[in-house]
């Protein structure tokens, strides 16, 4: 894991930059696609649990410092997604080589569906009751669709980053 930390950190910083500079303006139906949640999800799905938790925390916190929403909430949702995906990844579910072609996108879509809901629940717990009045339904639908299409290419990137350390060790 240690050998993959540097590439994972660099890619995560680029993911956050993409999120802030491109995806914040490129809205679908007014909704921001949350790349910072998809990245730890696919990293977990690729089977790199510790790395997935690390990128979820790093990316989430860096993103949160640029938003006016509760600090740490995006990171917390990313951690839950990363951990849940890593449980599936450990069983080989979503594996690009062995699983059916639609499995990874479907898990991605489920993650995109669940993430805004988890965020809203988290906001309730941190006493931000007004967030549920926002665009939850649009966020859920758009992120689910976007994650469906982006899950496989992002998973390839995650596998490349995760296996960099292993290759270096050999």
């Amino acid at each position, binding site marked *: 894991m240690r050998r993959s930390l540097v590439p994972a950190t660099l890619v995560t910083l680029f993911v956050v930059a993409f999120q802030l500079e491109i995806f914040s303006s490129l809205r679908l139906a007014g909704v921001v696609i949350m790349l910072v949640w998809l990245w730890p999800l696919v990293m977990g799905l690729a089977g790199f649990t510790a790395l997935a*938790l690390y990128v979820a925390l790093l990316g989430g916190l860096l993103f949160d410092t640029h938003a006016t929403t509760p600090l740490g909430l995006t990171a917390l949702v990313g951690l839950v997604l990363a951990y849940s995906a890593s449980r599936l990844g450990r069983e080989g579910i979503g594996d690009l080589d062995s699983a059916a072609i639609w499995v990874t996108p479907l898990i991605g879509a489920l993650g995109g569906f669940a993430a805004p809901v988890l965020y809203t629940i988290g906001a309730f717990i941190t006493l931000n009751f007004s967030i549920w009045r926002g665009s939850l339904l649009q966020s859920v639908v758009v992120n689910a669709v976007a994650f469906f299409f982006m899950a496989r290419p992002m998973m390839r990137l995650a596998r490349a980053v995760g296996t960099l350390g292993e290759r270096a060790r050999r």
Partner: protein
Amino acid sequence: MASERSRRRALTVGVGATVLVVVLYLTGGVLSGVRTAANVVVSPFSWSVNEVARPIGHFLAGAIDYSDVVAQNQRLRYELGRAQQQANEQWSFERQLEQISTQLHVPFIGSLPTVAAQVTALSPTNFAATVDISVGRDNGVLAGMPVVANGGLVGRVISTTPHGATVRLISDTNSSIGVTYGNGSSTLLISGRGVNNGLGATAIPLTTTISPGTVMATDGLEGGLYPPGLPVAKVSKVTLTPGAATYNLVLRPTANLRQLSYLDVVLWEPST
């Protein structure tokens, strides 16, 4: 077994660190420093992404939407001409209103100084409607000042830095605005309903006469957050509350919040 233990340890450390940061945030401790540090870390990557992606995006958008851009330009020229004509017509009315406002000791919005600002960033999340602007404390902008553009109230400054500020839009779910309508004798509290959902008001008594198209403006009550007379929203739908003898209102902001490029910060501070 060992990997299971290390996974749990990593999760515990991650959750613990997040909780720690949330606590620091709630106590208002090192937040400013954390934000600054995060900006320093991310900004080189943002810059490189911008340098590569923006020209490509502009090229594609220009190539695909060229006819739209031309049509939009023509429409904007027409609207600008019309707005200038209306501004000329309104000049004499504003003079009269200013005189009346002075007599009543009410601040008149036309006489309040403003600072022009450019929108530098939109809110990066779906759960907050904010924009970052290019002017800050060095330009006299302070937290609490109202922001106007495109024909109406846009929001309110919530935080400032020496060279920038963050504006919470009126559509944000944390925004509430006291408004008046008609002859100014009735007041309402309207609130934001999220990034894409405009504004709303609930539990309006049936005795109130409001119809679609009614324009709401800030009430300017003493101790309020906004000066009086800023157009806020237009009623787009009036619905009867199910099971209650009250109305619900759906309102559309008078300012186009989706097309914010430049705006004006009104140098007016709420009275405490």
